[in-house]
């Protein structure tokens, strides 16, 4: 293990480490803690210049106010309407592409695979105008559906990379044996490969959920009104309206951040497994 385990050092060093940990954490999360504190600060505190001290009282009504005076509930609902279909669509498509690229050897296999990989790295701006025109043309501009369709297509690139590598690491004998038995190819997919892909599916579901929930650029490009905007775009426009009402901005931020944070803490193992794919050989 590197560095040398702290258990092997002197008690003084061990004690120091135990003290350093929480201090480092507080420093690291300081801006976040500040915002969390501001979100429960009564407006009067801010007016009196009490920005850092403890709040004079816990103003939970900031949260109520955010829901009452802004369409944030609607924004959150829109975010789900974009995120959930995207997760499902992406997983369906990438299980299939991953299967095709991971199991079969055919001409163009590597080429198609690296097209998916390279497509991932492309700057969004080079897609912006044509994708916007395309969405317009399909009559889906300013709909959650139009936004979800783009996300499905783009995330399929990333997920294909992941799925394909996962599938090609499965034991080949399994598939060869099935073929000898005369099992049809689609049955191999459905009954043999798919059940083995569960961990990959779980990891990607969490990752894609977080990525799409947090997307801001495409939300601003493809949606314009409060009835369709997801929470990231909505928060940005609320920030313009709530100038200096930091207690509301903070409460709104916390609300917007909550779903992916919950997702992360509930599915941590899968999340990290997905994110660190390829970090070890």
């Amino acid at each position, binding site marked *: *293990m*590197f560095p040398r*385990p*702290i*258990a092997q050092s002197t008690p003084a060093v*061990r004690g120091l480490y135990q003290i350093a940990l929480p201090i480092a*954490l507080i420093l*690291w*999360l300081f*801006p*976040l803690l*500040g915002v969390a504190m*501001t979100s429960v600060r009564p407006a009067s505190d801010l007016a009196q210049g009490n*920005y*850092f001290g403890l709040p004079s009282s816990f103003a939970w009504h900031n949260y109520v106010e955010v829901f009452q005076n802004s369409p944030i509930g609607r924004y959150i609902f829109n975010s789900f309407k974009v995120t959930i279909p995207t997760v499902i669509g992406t997983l369906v*498509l990438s299980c*299939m*592409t991953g299967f*095709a*690229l991971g*199991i079969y050897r055919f001409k163009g*296999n*590597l080429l*198609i695979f690296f097209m998916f990989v*390279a*497509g991932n*790295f*492309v*700057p*969004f*701006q*080079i*897609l*912006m105008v*044509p*994708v916007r025109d*395309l969405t317009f043309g399909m009559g889906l501009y300013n709909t959650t559906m139009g936004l979800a369709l783009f996300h499905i*297509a*783009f995330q*399929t*690139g990333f997920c*294909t990379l992941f799925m394909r590598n996962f599938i090609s690491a499965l034991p080949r004998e399994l598939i060869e044996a099935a073929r000898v038995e005369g099992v049809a*190819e689609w049955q191999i997919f*459905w009954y043999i490969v798919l059940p083995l892909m569960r961990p990959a599916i779980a990891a990607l579901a969490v990752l894609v959920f*977080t990525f799409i929930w947090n997307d*801001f*650029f495409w939300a*601003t*490009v493809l949606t314009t009104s409060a009835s369709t905007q997801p929470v*990231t775009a909505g*928060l*940005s426009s609320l920030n313009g309206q709530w100038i200096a009402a930091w207690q509301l901005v*903070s409460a709104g*931020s916390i609300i*917007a951040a909550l779903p992916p944070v919950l997702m992360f803490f509930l599915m*941590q193992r899968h999340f990290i497994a997905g994110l*660190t794919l*390829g*970090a*070890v050989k």
Partner: protein
Amino acid sequence: MTVAFTDAEKPQRSWWRSNQQWLTPWLFLAPGLAMFILYVIWPIFSSFQLSLYDYDGLGTKVWLGWDNYKELFGDRAFKTSLKNNVIWLVMYMLAVPLGLAIAIFLNQTVRGIRIYKSLFFFPFVISQVVVGLIFSWFYAPNFGLLYKLTEMLTGKGTAILANPELATYGIIAAGLWPQIAYCMILYLTGLNNVAPDQIEAARLDGAKGLKMLWYVILPQLRPATFIAVVVTVIGALRSFDLVSIMTNGGPFGSTRVLSYYMYEQALSEYGYRMGYGAAIAVVLFGIMMIFISGFVWKMVRDERGNR
């Protein structure tokens, strides 16, 4: 969708039998590939073409040839954006060593360390919009924490985001926060998989501290470093959200980056110059392409080596 091939087409069944080996992968690829080509591959070419036209998004396109690109050369806002992109790239790279440093700090087995690790990773899970708002609050003039801090130290508060010299660095610092967390998690996973016998052997040879890190640990962390560099380069060039949330490109356009400037030209109140915007996007794509081809080349080489 494959069910259709079982019963309904009995006469063709033997044909299907003999051809399913090569047909199956293409049938499985078709939907995903079609979506990807429609939404990702084709738009790239379409943008290239668009960059040679004058187009406002609604009217007819007017052929300009290379005029949009010629205009870029004399455009000061473009130069500022390009310069800022370089600053982003360089400064953002700090995320890699800093992420490694935190990973080494946290790679222990004391009680509760798992919770510490996840809390350190926390900033990456939050949307960049929220990160931008958090740091705007942190930097806010008159009452922001950083303003107060500089006031205490120098007697005069600095409102970073209002200062054209410093604003970009202020945004980059905000961007580094989640990026360091990302690199940290990559390295934590990497450190977990470093071969213990090699470390022990090196320890017996008297290797310690930085020497050990440099000669024994880092070579084993190479895959993690590769991914950390890739995601950091892409993150730096994609920086749009933070600029948009924290400064809108200001003050005086000093924090624009190519991705933001493109958006401004093509889709904002400054006018719908989509052809010109596309030309900016093509330049950004070109810069990204230098890195992409490097990364993909390395991946192809690894892939060939595996087979």
